């Protein structure tokens, strides 16, 4: 099953009236997603109501156990947050990380049009939140100042991951 928060939780439109009983837990799920993103370094110093507005544009997708989320070399459209379940990230059959609720991955796609550098597979039934570059760009158009703050946070996160990767390589050498 898949749907976006934009349908599930927004205002009093006819669509919302029609779908409301199907997605009645949309509000609470949005709050959970907002809180999970706020706990990440990407949303540091961004007020809750603005984070929630951005989270409302994100997309929920359900994956079965063993289903491939993306593969190395695929074109990436955005970052992904694990709302529930478990995700295995690997490269060349070597496991890089096992991700759980609140972890996020694939954030390089928010900054650059690079291909995915690893494989990601759901190891149990998982619900994931897609934060697409498209949604980020539209949000930045509306909130340029907060957008600049977000991009600073994103740069810091990518720099930290680069630093950690460098240290790992240095140790291996």
């Amino acid at each position, binding site marked *: 099953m898949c749907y976006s928060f*934009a349908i599930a939780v927004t205002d009093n439109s006819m669509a919302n009236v029609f779908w409301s009983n199907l997605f009645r837990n949309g509000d609470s799920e949005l709050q959970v997603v907002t809180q999970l993103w706020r706990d990440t370094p990407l949303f540091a110093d961004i007020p809750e109501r603005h984070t929630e507005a951005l989270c409302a544009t994100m*997309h929920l997708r359900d994956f079965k156990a063993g289903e491939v*989320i*993306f593969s*190395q*070399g*695929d*074109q990436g*459209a955005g970052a992904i947050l694990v709302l529930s379940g478990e995700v295995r990230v690997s490269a060349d059959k070597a496991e890089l990380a096992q991700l759980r609720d609140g972890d996020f991955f694939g954030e390089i796609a928010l900054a650059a049009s690079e291909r995915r550098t690893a494989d990601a597979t759901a190891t149990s039934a998982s619900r994931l939140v897609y934060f697409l570059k498209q949604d980020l760009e539209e949000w930045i158009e509306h*909130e340029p100042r907060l957008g600049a703050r977000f991009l600073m946070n994103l740069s810091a996160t990518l720099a930290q991951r680069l630093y950690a990767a460098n240290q790992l390589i240095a140790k291996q050498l």
Partner: protein
Amino acid sequence: MSWQQSPHIRTFKLFALVVGVCLASFYLISSVLIPVIISFTLYALFQPAVTYLARHDINHSLSILIVLVLLTIVSTVMIAFALPALVEQVSLLQSRLPQIAEQLEQLLTVYGDKLSARVGADIDASEIILSILSKSSSLGQAALFEVSNRLVNFVIIFILVPFLTYYLLKDFKRARNEMMNWLPNSSFELGWLIYHKVSTQLQAYTHGVMLQSLIMATFCSIGFTLIGLDIPLLMGAITGLFNLVPYVGPIISILLSLLVGAAMTPFDANILYLSVLVIVGAQIFDNLVVIPAVVANAVNLHPVQAILGIIIFGSLFGTVGIILAVPAIAAGKIVFKNIYTDIANANLKATP
């Protein structure tokens, strides 16, 4: 690898499916296709203005209303100004056709005699003129009939377009998200990537060609005023509008300006030469200055692709096809390229 599993064949199959879905959608909405196209164009043009107002703490719906009210006022004034002038010009042209024919006959008699002497064949000027006159006269009547006949459709479009544009500006993103969620997990990111690239390119193209048309309309209006052509502003606006159709549009503009120039009294052949000069000059300015600065990179199409596309789309879908050919081919190229990249990448990984 069998030929059926080749990335090219699989891409063609998937691409054909996408094209088929698009054509079926166009067929379903064919009765309201023109208002839908105009509304999407207005959406692409005015979305930045709505975003700008919304950024300054103006309610989203109010921002849309402000933009649409301004648009309606401006277009009403322009139509009220342009439509009677256009109808009057067509009537004027029709009433002057005998006079134009007479002048053409004189010209053809003079040059026809010279030509006959050179090639040794008889050229009957009056026969040629009578044929042109009868065709032009019926064409003029048909144009007048068409204008009055289409007024009803025009009123429907005039009412429908603001309505559709309002809801596109208000709810398009929500509807888009809903439709994109129909994609399976395996194609979700690819679908969004293609959408992102196509929408960015189409938006840039729409902004580019609209600005290009405005510049061309201004350039030609000034040029037509300077050479003394009748209704210079209207002719400039029409030339700017026809500039939306690459390659074919400028030729139609030249023919129209020649007709208007020929209808002027007293007849002055210099006006005809100067009209052509203004449009050719505008085209040179367009190709050397405007396109590189405004439209370049919006669509990355080879001229041959564009011309062939215009001819094929034109023969299949008429005027609408001619206008949509360039953006549709550009979008098709993006879709094909991205599907192929994805399939080729998957094939590469599947190969041991």
